[in-house]
């Protein structure tokens, strides 16, 4: 194995170490968890061997030995229970630490945000804002003055001549539209055409009926 | 007379060049004519001396063979036979009698006689080996054996050399004969009948080929010779390759059933060669197979590998022949094939063969392919490997052997 390491030096040297102390702590905890897992597996395998030993003793009528084996099994089972307890504890601890890590980053983020806000607030002083408001007020007053000067003797909305002109043009336009509409026919319709008209009416009634039926059975209509 | 022996860790220290000849047990001995025999144990005869361990004490004693003049077997009334050693100096020294098991006595006598005759001690004298353990003795013995083997090998090689010289002379003679016959042929005349008879004899004894005898007349020397050879070789290769292609496309048709009509009976030679198991597989012929085939076809006018290579290169340089020389991937093997043949086509034939024989997802070994194509295993293997290199075939390397399969790895890509 060593040869592999020596041949391919890992990239650790050139990269900054991104491992914190809490990472190492978590790793240690997880390594402990692994140890417990291994121990548990070992116990489980001894239990099965205990059980088979007990069965063998029963078959060969060695009752006391069988009892002993079963006692051992019982003992191992309690050990496994303990293991599980420890595992649970360690898992709890790990998740706590990991959660704390998350919190830590959260706090850090808050801190950074806070600092940024403070910095921005520092840059924007109250005097400066006041001055800005004043300046914009002044600009508005100036604009009103300019408007007043423009409307003093120029064109206003109330100019009657202009309005009369407008109305005249509108009337002319409306007249042109009316003249262009064709006049209705005056002659009688031939009989065939009359039937066709009647059929058309029937058709309309039929279509309405179908429509109604469709509405009654909506599940048949494809979506 | 019999000396105390220097020992080394309880074993007698050997002399330089001393070799053990035989063991003698049981052994008893006495000096002079009267008195009792003394028992000895661990008796042994070496090239230098006779030695034994005294009964009761661990002292070793010996009789040096250089002081023995003669040995003989004597028999006495009461005690049975014995080996008597006669010391050389002084002349009146009492003889030494040795007894051993009756069955061993003759052997002992002959061994002693042989050792006396060889007189190995004369080489190094009686010089004690210093610090010689068992290992160095073994090494020394090994060295001697190797020298002997070298000697044998050298002799054998000399024999071979002589044999080769004889063969060369024989080939030279055959060549000379056919050449003189050809020149005589050109002259013509009254001896024609005699010459015909001679040539007939040569053909009968397998020393010449009828068709070649007519052609050989014009092969004077040098380039001319090679050009001629190249032409012959080209034609020969094409015939063999043509045969092999018909073979591989219709493997069930037996070559012997095919009509032998034209081409001056050459096809017969080719067919015979193919029945012998060698042929151009899949439109390709290995140069060393070609060498055998061609020389077999030529009969007497054998050509050397160098001649074959030169002529083959000339034949392949000539575009009208339509032949290609190709060096296989491993660089050591040369093969000749027709110009319109390439690796991909060759591999396609092999894939088709494998699919036909072993099924779509089946495999074949080089020897199976060789049997199917009627070619040599090495050629089959080379072709399979070439096909593999081109990505047409894949291999299955198992303990049973090497099998080749169609390259199915790209099936899903198609």
């Amino acid at each position: 194995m060593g040869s592999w390491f020596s041949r391919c030096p890992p990239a650790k040297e050139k990269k900054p170490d991104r491992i914190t102390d809490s990472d190492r702590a978590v790793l240690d905890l997880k390594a402990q968890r692994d140890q417990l897992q291994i121990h548990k597996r070992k116990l489980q395998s001894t239990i099965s061997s205990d059980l088979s030993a007990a069965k063998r003793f029963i078959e060969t009528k060695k009752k006391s030995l069988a009892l002993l084996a079963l006692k051992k099994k019982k003992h191992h089972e309690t050990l496994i229970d303990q293991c599980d307890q420890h595992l649970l504890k360690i898992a709890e601890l790990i998740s706590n630490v990991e959660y704390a890590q998350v919190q830590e980053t959260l706090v850090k983020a808050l801190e950074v945000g806070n600092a940024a806000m403070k910095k921005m607030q520092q840059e924007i002083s109250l005097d400066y804002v006041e001055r800005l408001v004043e300046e914009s007020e002044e600009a508005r007053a100036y604009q009103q003055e300019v408007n007043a000067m423009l409307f003093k003797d120029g064109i206003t909305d109330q100019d009657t001549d202009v309005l009369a002109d407008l109305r005249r043009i509108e009337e002319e336009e409306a007249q042109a539209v009316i003249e262009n509409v064709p006049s209705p026919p005056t002659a009688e319709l031939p009989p065939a055409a009359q039937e066709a008209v009647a059929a058309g009416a029937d058709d309309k009634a039929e279509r309405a009926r179908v429509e109604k039926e469709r509405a009654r059975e909506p599940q048949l209509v494809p979506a | 007379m019999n000396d105390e022996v220097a020992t080394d860790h309880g074993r007698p220290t050997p002399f330089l060049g001393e070799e053990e000849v035989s063991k003698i047990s049981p052994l008893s001995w006495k000096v002079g004519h009267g008195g009792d025999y003394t028992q000895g144990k661990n008796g042994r005869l070496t090239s230098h001396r006779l030695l034994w361990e005294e009964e009761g004490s661990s002292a070793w004693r010996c009789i040096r063979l250089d002081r023995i003049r003669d040995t003989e077997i004597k028999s006495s009334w009461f005690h049975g036979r014995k080996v008597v050693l006669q010391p050389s100096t002084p002349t009146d020294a009492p003889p030494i009698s040795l007894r051993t098991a009756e069955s061993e006595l003759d052997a002992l006598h002959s061994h002693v006689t042989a050792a006396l005759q060889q007189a190995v001690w004369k080489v190094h004298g009686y010089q004690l080996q210093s610090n010689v353990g068992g290992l160095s003795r073994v090494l020394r013995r090994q060295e001697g054996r190797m020298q002997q083997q070298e000697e044998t090998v050298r002799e054998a090689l000399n024999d071979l050399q002589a044999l080769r010289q004889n063969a060369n002379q024989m080939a030279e003679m055959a060549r000379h004969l056919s050449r003189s016959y050809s020149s005589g042929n050109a002259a013509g005349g009254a001896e024609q009948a005699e010459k015909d008879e001679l040539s007939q004899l040569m053909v009968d004894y397998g020393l010449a080929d009828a068709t070649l005898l007519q052609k050989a007349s014009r092969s004077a020397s040098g380039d001319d010779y090679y050009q001629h050879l190249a032409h012959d070789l080209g034609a020969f290769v094409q015939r063999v390759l043509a045969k092999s292609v018909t073979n591989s496309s219709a493997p069930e048709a037996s070559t012997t059933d095919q009509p032998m009509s034209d081409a001056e009976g050459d096809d017969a030679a080719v067919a015979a060669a193919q029945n012998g198991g060698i042929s151009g597989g899949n439109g390709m012929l290995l140069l060393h197979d070609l060498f055998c085939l061609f020389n077999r076809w030529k009969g007497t006018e054998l050509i050397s590998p160098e001649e074959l290579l030169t002529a083959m290169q000339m034949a392949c340089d000539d575009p009208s022949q339509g032949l290609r020389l190709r060096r296989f991937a491993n660089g050591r093997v040369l093969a000749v094939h027709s110009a319109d043949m390439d690796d991909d086509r060759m591999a396609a034939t092999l894939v088709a063969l494998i699919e036909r024989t072993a099924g779509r997802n089946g495999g074949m070994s080089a020897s199976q392919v060789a049997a199917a194509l009627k070619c040599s295993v090495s050629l089959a293997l080379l072709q399979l490997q070439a096909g593999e290199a081109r990505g047409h075939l894949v291999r299955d390397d198992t303990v049973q052997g090497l099998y080749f399969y169609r390259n199915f790895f790209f099936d899903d890509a198609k």
Partner: protein
Amino acid sequence: MESNQWSSPTEFWDLPPFFTIQPTDATREKQLSLWLQVVCHYCRAQRQYFIDISERMADSAPFHNAKAKRKLTLDGLRKICSYMVQHGHGVWMDEGQNRMAVFWRKPQEWAAAIYRWASDSGHLNSVETLFSLREGDDTRDQDFHGLPHEILLIALQALEGQGKAQIFRGSSSDHDGVKFFSQAA
């Protein structure tokens, strides 16, 4: 062994040449890529994370096919593993290259799956042990549940490289932990 429950994603697995590493380059490349698929498929099905270069490994599926009567050689096994490492589907665990971690998912994919889980289950910006990622009840229905420590670590290192997580040790224990980040640093 488990080969009866597992079926290869490619029919080539039943063909003998698949078990001989091919000498021709292009063919071998293709073959190895098929092997990569087979190995990943097998390991995913069997939840297998490691491959050893051993006879025992070569004798078992997917490197041994009883039906085709073929098995890979150790050399072949090594070649396949090397190919997987080359293509990011594995990594050698030792210097001697005898053990390979299989990435039937590439580390980046594991990393993405883990990060998705972390963000879906609210584990961003919080700490988790590597043990609980592998074995914990929270990840029981996740694909990466049961991933071996080594591979998990590699995946998390990939995540770390992207800046989406950091691996660290606790102050008192020597257990590895990881912290997921909501955004890359």
